[in-house]
């Protein structure tokens, strides 16, 4: 099932399909940013992936391209749990194409991605914040945003401050270095 999807996408879009990967019946397709929207439309209309489960974004801080968008598709009529992940990459200033007109639910997902990561979507009419308040000057899920937060002030709306981490945060990060590096008592996030 999945491998036929991957062949169908390859025959329809050729070079725009950068990479396909199948792992335990889950198909992950990496596509070019410019073609992503058309490929998603093709998945919806031709391949039967009628339901958009989620849109998420990754911050590959320190690498190029910086952003990865992940779209999770699903077939409602199919009792098997087939996922199709469409990944596409983009650079710091890149805009992604909105899919809010393909799936209405994408509007909130894209607003959340914009709110947390600061990624802009062409064609998304509603670029309001969804979790943080209007006027909050930062994008808190970016890797270069400190966990403790930063000071900000929006009169009569909200303010924010740095949290005292007092020896924390007890965050881990993947590394082949020693435990001291992998699980530091504290790390200066700035």
């Amino acid at each position, binding site marked *: 099932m999945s491998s036929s999807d991957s062949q169908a996408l390859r025959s329809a879009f050729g070079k725009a399909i950068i990479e396909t990967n199948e792992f335990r019946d889950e198909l992950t397709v990496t596509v070019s940013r410019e073609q992503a929207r058309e490929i998603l439309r093709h998945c919806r209309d031709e391949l039967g992936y009628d339901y958009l489960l989620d849109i998420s974004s990754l911050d590959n801080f320190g690498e190029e391209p910086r952003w990865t968008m992940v779209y999770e598709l699903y077939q409602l009529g199919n009792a098997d749990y087939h996922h199709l992940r469409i990944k596409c990459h983009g650079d710091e200033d890149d805009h992604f194409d909105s899919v809010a007109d393909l799936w209405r639910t994408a509007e909130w997902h894209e607003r959340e991605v914009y709110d947390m990561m600061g990624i802009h979507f062409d064609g998304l009419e509603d670029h309001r914040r969804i*979790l*943080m*308040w209007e006027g909050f000057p*930062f994008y*808190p899920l970016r890797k270069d*945003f*400190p*966990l*403790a*937060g*930063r000071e900000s002030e929006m009169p*009569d*709306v*909200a*303010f*924010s*401050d740095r*949290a*005292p*981490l*007092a020896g*924390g*945060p007890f965050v881990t990060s993947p590394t082949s270095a020693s435990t001291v590096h992998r699980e530091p008592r504290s790390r200066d996030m700035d």
Partner: protein
Amino acid sequence: MSEIAPAQHAAYDSKVEGNVIFTQVDAAINWMRKNSLWPMPMGLACCAIELMGSASSRFDIARFGAEVMRFSPRQADVMIVAGTVTYKMALSVKRIWDQMPGPKWCIAMGACASSGGMYRSYAVLQGIDNLIPVDVYISGCPPRPEAVLEGLMKLQKKIEESESALAHFNAEKPA
């Protein structure tokens, strides 16, 4: 109509004798206040569930005269901040507190309202005492209803020992 005999003084009327208490006005006011605290339930997270538990029959906050949860700040005496105060919510909590008429008190219920709790993060106010004065802090994550009642009793103790009513109103005036 029979004439009242000179020996029958009003204070020794047998119908009211035993029900008359002599006290100070301040002590009486404090006694009334502490036994009719109307809470403003500022339920923001899981602590609110325990607050509901304290109000329901097994624990019954009504035994302490605080069962009248008021969702209008104008009618409330004590704000129970039950839960995580995010920065997005913080000024709303402050606004509701400002709308409550004095004398008023605040209970910070649970770790989050007291100190930010486990949320050492960009989104969470590190304790409601950064914005409004807190009278009683209740530890726990969330606190058990017994702890809420204990906190309420502590607050009652504080009200009982508070200064005169006049001093209360004078303190409410902006400096």
